[in-house]
């Protein structure tokens, strides 16, 4: 554990950083919250005073070092202060997803042996009270919003402001306790426990020390040049590592302002009013913003619509190059400048992206169309890879080398390696977690003695040192010739085409990769109408030669992309067929959250898979179909199989 900057070293926990900020810049704004339609500002001094009162109030309630304090609610300054207050007295905050149902929350509260809970409002209080019986450790519930709680007279219920009031009174008899308690904090102490949502099995409590978060935040603040002038909008769940990192750890380091939206429904308009400089969103948000923009433009007047499409064309041609300061012809430069005045500027303003210096997308793959759309408008959108166990950061893209298909080189002080046999990504970083709370076995499996941490993701490192995440490690197989076969990676690439709804790739222990494809009935149907192709049903449309040609074009485009990567050149899709029916959750082929059940699909359509790996160009299939009312029927169809062109390996284009 080394922190070079001796000056910074004095402030090696978050409460200490809070004291520093309040001392150095007492009047600068620390938090803003929109209330009653107005942005209310809290300065660093306000924050310090509030945290102090709250921390002493917690002491008065009998809480202290090592106790766990849960926080349930949406992004509110008062709840962020609860983190600082808990850490100040040596307790460990445990944020919890506020939309979790009572049983999920109960597991976490009981597992973490939580002694007190901060709950935002009546809804959360009711939820906690309904499970109090199974969580005997909970002795206090502190609520922020008194509405609806007036008639509750339980002794263990306390109003946030009353706790602070008690804290202020306690301060009179214990004037230096707050500072003394903060001074006891050490960098190796536990800072926070974040429960991972746990797609498989029970949630696990990831223990992060001050060193983990503190050092990762310091390095990333330095890397991105974040300063006290930056602004973020905190609207993602507080229990998620990203929010904790951006709105708490980094904010305390860089001293920038954290803004809390008025309510979950007003996020978009708050975003527009605020114009943050530093922004994070999962790909789905960027995608839906783009779709909404496109729909609205189609409703706009002819002049506006033409202007929009013309300049978006200009931006597509040269926007990204201009952002990356690459040579662009004078004419394009002038056109882009004009477009900036007429289209890009107003559009970004409308979306609230006018002032963005740095923005991230992470959590899922993002389509290159979407990614490049925002970049071509001159917005510095980058990808980032990480997980709760790594304090959010493992890889991060440099401002001058951003791509849509990699997540960038390892972040500062991080190392990444690929396990040769499984293809799994491992990393070493200052942010690498301490362990899972009360789960030695899982800790040992994930974090090795040598310090390397398993991610569970399969990836490859490109020839110039960038990490590319391709799939969950357990789904990854190999072709007969040893080429890595990551079904989801190829499927995602194909699914970015609007015509393709669902894809299932085959290739594990085979010579080549083949695919089942579901067309998107809306998109392809629309396309067919414009082409003057008539059809009667999904099956009929999917079996049209024209549609096969359309899909073939998509597949070959993906093949070309795959050819760029020397590791994946043999994993190009050689043959495909369009399924005669849509994969459906009612038939058990998809999960309720629309994920493909590979094993069931492979069993049910074994005959189609065999045909894909034979020379046949036509195959008959009879399959069972479940109607919505539960009756079943037979569906017979002759399916065509189409060959696709594959491409030789290309040199990596940088």
């Amino acid at each position, binding site marked *: 554990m080394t922190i070079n900057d001796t000056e910074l070293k004095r402030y090696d926990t978050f409460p200490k950083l809070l004291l520093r900020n309040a001392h150095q810049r007492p009047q600068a704004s620390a938090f803003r919250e929109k209330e*009653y339609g107005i942005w209310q500002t809290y300065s660093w001094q306000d924050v310090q005073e509030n945290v102090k009162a709250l921390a002493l109030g917690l002491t008065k309630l009998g809480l202290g070092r090592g106790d766990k304090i849960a926080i349930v609610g949406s992004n509110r300054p008062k709840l962020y202060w609860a983190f600082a207050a808990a850490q100040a007295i040596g307790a460990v905050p445990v944020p919890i997803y506020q939309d979790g149902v009572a049983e999920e929350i109960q597991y976490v509260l009981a597992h973490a042996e939580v002694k007190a809970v901060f709950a935002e409002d009546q809804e959360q209080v009711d939820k906690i009270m309904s499970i109090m019986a199974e969580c005997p450790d909970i002795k206090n519930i502190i609520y922020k919003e008194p509405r609806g709680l*007036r008639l509750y007279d339980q002794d263990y219920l306390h109003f946030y402001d009353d706790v602070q009031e008690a804290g202020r009174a306690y301060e009179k008899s214990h004037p230096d306790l707050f500072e003394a308690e903060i001074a006891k904090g050490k960098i190796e102490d536990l800072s926070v426990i974040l429960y991972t949502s746990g797609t498989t099995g029970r949630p696990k409590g990831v223990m992060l020390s001050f060193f983990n978060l503190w050092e990762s935040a310091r390095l990333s603040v330095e890397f991105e040049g974040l300063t006290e002038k930056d602004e973020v909008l905190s609207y993602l769940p507080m229990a998620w590592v990203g929010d904790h990192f951006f709105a708490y750890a980094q904010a305390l380091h860089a001293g920038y302002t954290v803004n809390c939206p008025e309510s979950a429904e007003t996020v978009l308009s708050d975003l527009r009013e605020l114009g943050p400089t530093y922004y994070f969103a999962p790909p789905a948000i960027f995608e839906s913003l783009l779709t909404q923009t496109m729909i609205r433009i189609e409703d706009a007047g002819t002049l506006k619509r033409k202007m929009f499409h013309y300049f978006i064309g200009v931006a597509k041609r040269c926007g990204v190059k201009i952002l990356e300061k690459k040579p662009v012809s004078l004419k394009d430069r002038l056109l882009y400048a004009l477009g900036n005045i007429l289209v890009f500027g107003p559009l970004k303003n409308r979306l609230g992206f006018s002032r963005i210096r740095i923005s991230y997308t992470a959590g899922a793959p993002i389509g290159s169309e979407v990614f490049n759309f925002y970049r071509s408008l001159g917005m510095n959108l980058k990808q980032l890879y990480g997980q709760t166990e790594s304090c959010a950061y493992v890889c991060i893209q440099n401002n001058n080398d951003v791509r849509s298909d990699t997540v960038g080189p390892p972040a500062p002080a991080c190392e990444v390696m690929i396990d040769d046999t499984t293809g799994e990504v491992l990393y070493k970083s200052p942010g690498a977690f301490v362990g899972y709370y009360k789960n030695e076995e899982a800790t040992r499996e994930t974090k090795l003695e040598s310090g390397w941490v398993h991610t569970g993701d399969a990836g490859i490192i490109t020839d110039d040192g960038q990490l590319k995440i391709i799939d969950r490690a357990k789904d990854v197989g190999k072709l007969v010739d040893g080429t890595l076969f990551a079904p989801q990676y190829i499927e995602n690439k194909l699914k970015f085409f609007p015509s393709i709804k669902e894809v299932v790739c085959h290739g594990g222990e085979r010579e080549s990769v083949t695919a089942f494809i579901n067309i998107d009935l809306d998109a392809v149907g629309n396309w067919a109408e414009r082409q003057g192709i008539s059809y009667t049903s999904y099956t009929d449309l999917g079996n049209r030669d024209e549609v096969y040609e359309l899909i073939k074009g998509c597949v070959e485009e993906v093949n070309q992309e795959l050819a760029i990567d020397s590791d994946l050149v043999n994993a190009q899709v050689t043959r495909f067929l369009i399924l005669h029916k849509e994969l459906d959750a009612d038939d058990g082929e998809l999960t309720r959250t629309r994920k493909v059940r590979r094993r069931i699909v492979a069993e049910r359509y074994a005959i189609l898979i065999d045909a894909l790996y034979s020379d046949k160009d036509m195959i008959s299939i009879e399959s069972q179909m479940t109607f919505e009312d539960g009756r079943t029927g037979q569906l017979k169809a002759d399916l065509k199989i189409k060959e696709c062109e594959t491409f030789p390996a290309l040199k990596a284009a940088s």
Partner: protein
Amino acid sequence: MLEDTRKIGDILLDVKGISLSFGAVKAIADVSFDILEGEVRAIIGPNGAGKTSMLNCINGFYHPQQGTITYKGTTRSQMKPYEAAAQGIGRTFQNVALFKGMSTLDNIMTGRNLKMKSGILSALIWRGRAEREELEHRRFVEDIINFLEIEAIRKTPVGRLPYGLQKRVELGRALAAEPDLLLLDEPMAGMNLEEKEDMCRFILDVNQEFGTTICLIEHDMGVVMDISDRVLVLDYGGKIADGTPDAVRADQNVIDAYLGGGH
């Protein structure tokens, strides 16, 4: 701040033997009942039973030919609706009656109308008192917006809002006048289950947090039985039952009125 004012107190409104007829049609025939301070009072009954007419009598829109209405200890024979409003009776309507082209905020602001004291001239110049006054009212309106959780539609013209939200805005406008007695005419008509649940919570919160006495007309029996303290049942203009939800539910007259005789 607010405090728990939910204590059922004295008689706030006393209706004694009122009758109302339009020509030969008897809308209300000799009905007496009272509303206690701080309670949630429901009026139910089949279509045409005279429920809305009753509300219209209470807030002075109709004038009953017989009987008296005593509100806050003052008995009156005739009163104009705006006088009723000035005395603290607020209401919402069966068919939403908002200004469709105006935003949510402006609609609720109109509810403050009676509380605005500055004259036209100073409002036009908008300096000094008029400005201060508007800021105060705006602050109050923002409280209501926050209370009803309609921040996201603050600036949306109400004509573009779904029905359930319009009803909520209308409640907001009624609340803006800080009524002592709030008359709600079918606040949940045409809503889906979730919207109804939300509305119930808001009505109960209004009752508890502001201490507002509430008199509501509602068709959804589940809602009525859940949230009201006492229920008045009308049929063909006459009172057939009055009492707690449980008592009313068990009353043979009520069962007959709703299900037809012979059950």
